């Protein structure tokens, strides 16, 4: 009887169940994320101390400007005008009024405090999700006051990482060849600067021609090529100490020494008996090993991040193309098959792509392709540009571009440029003089 009742109730009260509606959202807004970078607040005592030590009146604003500039340069964020902010920095850092920040269309908010504690600079910052009204990240750093610019870069890295999911590239340096004078009598010096162009230092005097400086991926060492009495010589330079040593003199034309991922070897190409091949040198015992042995010209070797493969360019198929082989020189495979000439392959630190320079119909392109040669994408095109170098997160390329200084094509200027993998965010990197052959360091704060 009970069963019958239940059946009757079920039949009488049956209702129509609706299936869950699913909607696919496959498009969105590609405009950069609106972010509010509030100036870092500080008390009067700290302000006086900063003024005394650093001769800076408002260090909080200066640090927030560094963060703002870094984020803007990525093309992924749109820092909002500070004039539009409705809340004072010190109050915002304690408890932001999210409605006020949402009103100016901010989706993320950065607040912070900077002070002097025991003669050290202490920075505290918070990253807020304005729409969810919650804190996303809170960190504090203590360092010597003169390090204030680096603190700005480290904050930028942490914010970038939290908002994009990948490591930042702001606390890094760029080494390049600074050039001055007419093209026929060019003075070339090694120069190093922060990635935003500040803290420029010259590392050589300009007496000798310097070429292709490359960072060691594991520390702040640099290898470069210099001509001493018209003979190519490979140097190692410790940037922290300024110590320099000669790795060796090599015969004939020597090109582009580059470190292996573990920093224990350098790989380069040089001409022996009129034939250019690829060689490695062990930095501990200085033993040179031949990697390729082919009558064609093999140059520009670059290791994969795991050290198992090497990309290089060769004209063994009549025209210059990119090849990949095992690090012992076996299993050589051509990976570029497009029209034009391909050169200067550089393996991404992420390991997924190879950047290259392409010359086709009188124009130079910087592009990327997968490590098997598929998915070739040309990111930028110009009259003359080459030597791409990856940011440590494998998202941005820096390269140099020569431009004619007037419409008649007279004179030229060489400058550093950066472009991200989307190909949309192309920017000139400010340098005091003309610049070429850039190389990007790994993160300093690793």
């Amino acid at each position, binding site marked *: 009887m009970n069963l019958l009742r239940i059946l009757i109730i079920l039949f009488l009260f*049956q209702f129509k169940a609706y299936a869950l*509606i*699913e909607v696919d*959202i496959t498009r*969105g807004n590609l405009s950069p*994320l609106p972010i509010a970078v509030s100036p870092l607040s500080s008390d009067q005592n700290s302000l006086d101390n900063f003024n005394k030590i650093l001769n800076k009146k408002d260090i909080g604003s200066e640090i927030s400007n560094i963060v703002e500039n870094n984020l803007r340069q990525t093309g992924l964020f749109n820092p909002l005008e500070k004039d539009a902010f409705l809340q004072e920095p010190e109050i915002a850092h304690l408890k932001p009024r999210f409605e006020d920040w949402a009103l100016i269309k901010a*989706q993320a908010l950065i607040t912070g405090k900077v002070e002097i504690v025991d003669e050290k600079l202490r920075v505290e910052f918070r990253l807020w*999700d304005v729409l969810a009204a919650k804190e996303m990240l809170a960190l504090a750093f203590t360092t010597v006051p003169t390090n204030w610019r680096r603190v700005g870069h480290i904050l930028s890295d942490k914010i970038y990482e939290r908002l994009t999911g990948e490591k930042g590239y702001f606390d890094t340096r760029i080494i390049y060849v600074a050039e001055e004078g007419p093209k026929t009598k060019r003075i070339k010096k090694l120069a190093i600067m922060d990635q935003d162009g500040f803290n420029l230092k010259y590392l050589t005097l300009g007496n000798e021609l310097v070429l292709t400086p490359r960072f060691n991926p594991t520390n702040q060492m640099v290898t470069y090529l210099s001509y001493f009495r018209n003979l190519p010589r490979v140097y190692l330079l410790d940037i922290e100490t300024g110590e320099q040593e000669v790795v060796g003199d090599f015969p004939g034309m020597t090109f582009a020494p580059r470190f292996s991922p573990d920093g224990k070897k350098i790989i380069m190409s040089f001409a022996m008996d009129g034939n250019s091949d690829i060689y490695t040198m062990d930095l501990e015992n200085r033993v040179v090993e031949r990697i390729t042995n082919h009558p064609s010209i093999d140059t520009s070797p670059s290791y994969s991040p795991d050290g198992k493969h090497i990309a290089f360019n060769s004209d063994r198929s009549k025209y210059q193309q990119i090849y990949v082989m095992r690090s012992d020189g076996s299993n050589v495979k051509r990976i570029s098959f497009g029209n034009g000439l391909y050169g200067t392959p550089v393996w991404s630190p992420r390991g997924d792509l190879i950047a290259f320079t392409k010359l086709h119909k009188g124009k130079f392109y910087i592009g990327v392709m997968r490590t098997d040669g598929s998915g070739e994408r040309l990111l930028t095109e110009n009259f003359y540009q080459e030597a791409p170098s990856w940011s440590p997160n494998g998202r941005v390329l820096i390269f140099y571009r020569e431009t004619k200084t007037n419409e008649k094509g007279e004179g030229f200027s060489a400058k550093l440029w950066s472009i991200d993998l989307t190909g949309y965010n192309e920017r000139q990197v400010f340098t005091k003089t003309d610049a070429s052959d850039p190389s990007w360091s790994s993160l300093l704060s690793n």
Partner: protein
Amino acid sequence: MYKNVAISTSFHLLIIILATFSLPFLIKKPIELPPIVSIELIQITDKTSIPFAPKAKKIIEKVKKKEEERIVSEQAPPKKIKKEKPDAVPLPDQKVEEVKKIEEKKQNPEKIETEIKQVSEFEKKELFDPNNIAALIDKSKENLAETNKTTKKITQSHDKNAEPSGLSLSEEDALKAQIFGCWSIPLGLPYNENLLVRIKLQLKPNGTVIKSEILDHARMNKPGQGFYKVLAESALRAIRLCQPLRVPTTGYERWKDLQLNFDAREMLEG
């Protein structure tokens, strides 16, 4: 005696009530599937292409004539005519192809207009052909099974056709367009990773979100899933920014629970 009569009467009443309330729900209407969508689209195109000039009548007539001619000519291919014959029920392989074709059409609104007109005309003919009723019943069952098989695999757009309870195309488009504008896709994401964020929403009748739930929430806090977390957060921000969502004014029961699948691959690849 009276007791027995009463029991018998009550049981009879019960059966009548059951039949009245439940039997209509058990009947599955044969094919109300893709043609419904196509008709809606045709109407929209017709409306939007009406000229407003004084000579509108003439132009409309001309256009109609042309369309009629076109439909007749497009219905001509022998393959389609074969379908009308009861013994020409397509083989399973052919049916899969047919289902796939319909899927393709949905992806391209321009194609839908002409192609689906054909299909709907055929379906109508088949439905109203009294000689083919038996064949049609069998076929509809098979077709339904086929459609179910494919919908299990793929997206909501198929479910939408299979389930009359879903959002209409225009309702779905309105909602999508609103969210497209609110969603800032994190541009730093790698295009080659499998990043699909599914968010289940509970909505108020005015489109305000009562509750939002990330369906793969556990993945957010796993190591090495930083990109997923970033994408999920951006999707949640989009929903909050868009509130109240542009939902239909009627049929709250249909859409009070809604699932949004955020997939940025298409944008990041392009």
